[in-house]
């Protein structure tokens, strides 16, 4: 067990973190290097302002669609906000960042809040994944990579919660190993939307504003 722990906390941790960082930066650099074709039309609005507006306005669904996508919106926010809170405010995570990455920590949430947030995030993730599987259009649009991403995140979250007792090292190591697999898989999957959503929204928003489209 000690050998496995030394491997996961040593070489494999550095490898997975390096793949994550190099992969994410590389893919973003590649996307940005493609640039955009210069529009020859007369600008009808500020492209920069349009880009910023689109990045934030898309957080709120259009009223016309909300009734039809209510479940997806609620589940989407439950999962994404929940995951963000767990990732950055769960005490074991902050301790890990402090020890292995940053050298400093910050206030964490109490255990009861951890459990409530986990439950909300789980409910959101399960509903989103079920929709992907059951909605005829989503099912056709989804590929194996989407399902692998969902399953991997589910098991990373699950093993983290199963290790909450903090009385078995093996459970913590399983969680750590799956989290490292996720780090390695991340840059090569649709999970990159964590970063690329800003650029894609901004790109579309800038184009719309340039052409005077209010959307």
């Amino acid at each position, binding site marked *: 067990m000690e050998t496995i722990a030394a491997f996961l906390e040593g070489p494999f941790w550095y490898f997975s973190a390096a793949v994550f960082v190099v992969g994410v930066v590389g893919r973003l650099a590649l996307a940005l290097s493609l640039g955009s074709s210069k529009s020859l039309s007369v600008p009808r609005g500020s492209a920069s302002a349009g880009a910023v507006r689109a990045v934030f306005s898309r957080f709120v669904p259009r009223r016309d669609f909300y009734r039809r996508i209510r479940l997806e919106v609620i589940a989407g926010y439950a999962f994404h906000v929940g995951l963000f809170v767990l990732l950055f405010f769960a005490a074991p995570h902050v301790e890990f960042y402090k020890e292995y990455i940053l050298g400093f920590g910050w206030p964490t949430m109490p255990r009861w809040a951890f459990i409530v947030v986990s439950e909300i995030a789980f409910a959101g993730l399960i509903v989103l994944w079920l929709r992907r599987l059951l909605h005829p259009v989503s099912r056709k649009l989804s590929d194996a990579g989407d399902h692998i991403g969902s399953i991997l995140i589910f098991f990373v979250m699950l093993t983290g919660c199963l290790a*909450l007792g903090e009385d078995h090292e093996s*459970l913590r190591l399983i969680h750590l190993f799956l989290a490292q697999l996720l780090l390695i898989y991340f840059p090569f999957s649709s999970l990159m939307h964590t970063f690329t959503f800003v650029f894609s929204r901004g790109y579309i928003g800038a184009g719309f504003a340039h052409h005077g489209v209010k959307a």
Partner: protein
Amino acid sequence: MKTGTTVNRHATRQSTTWLLPVVWLLLTICGTAVAEEQGGGAVPNPGIELWRAVREGPPPGVSRSQVEGIGMTTLIAEGGERWRQLRSNYVAPWGGWALVGMLGVLTLFHLVRKSPERFDGSSGKVIVRFPDYDRILHWFMAGTFLFLAISGLILLLGRYVILPLVGPQAFGAIASASKEGHNLFGPVFIVSLTLFVLRFAQRNFFARGDLAWLAKGGGMLSGKHVSAGFFNAGEKILFWSITFGGLAISISGLILVFPLFGQSRELMQLMLLVHGIAALVLIAFTFGHMYLGSIGLPGSFNAMNTGKVDADWAHAHHDRWHREAEEKGLIEKAPS
């Protein structure tokens, strides 16, 4: 040569030797008599009164403890041992065997029953039985229930089934993970159950025709279809079993997970039994549901997979619903 004193001592020893067994016999008789007078053949434990008092517990208001809380002045909770025996000797083994028995009954039923009718989609028509939201809700609840069932069974039966296979260290980790996961997913199940009941209750009230369906056993043995609406009586019984069984599991689970409201030890023990028995019954019912929703009734699984069922299947198993759908023009052409 023996002196006179030595001879006298020898003679005295010889003359008193016969006294020893007599004295031993007298003492034994007296001891037995005293012991019998004190209530039996056993030698009394000098601390018996003390331990009896400890087991009975102090009268209310007499004892105190530096640690405040319910049961803090109780040294030995005698009811706990009775509860443990009830759980270990009856609930766990009988519950485990009941589940195995249910699987056996279903297997036997599958082997002896008349082969169920298959619907290969030759009608070329389908009806939407469960839209997306209904299926998402069903699988959301089914997924959480399955997770809770597996983790709960590990906690109830793992000591007898898994521990001998994997050893104490691995089982310790499995049990710890099961306990944390079970407690975590419990509230998620309550949310899914609530949404499920709110969504499906209206279509599960008993109506005319349900008694006739029940009287004919749903035609399961005869192989003849019995008239039914959107849900047949068997499905309605399952729905209300899930509703009330789920309610019992949820309430007892909340009492167990949040021991913050002054729950007594006896109440917690009772809730553990209610929780376990209700869960075992629901798991057994779920085996039947899974069988009938898949290989037991070919064509049924489509209802919860794509949401659409073959029109012939609908006509055979839910003729009244099929007629309604026909009247409302809800029968569609099957996608090619």
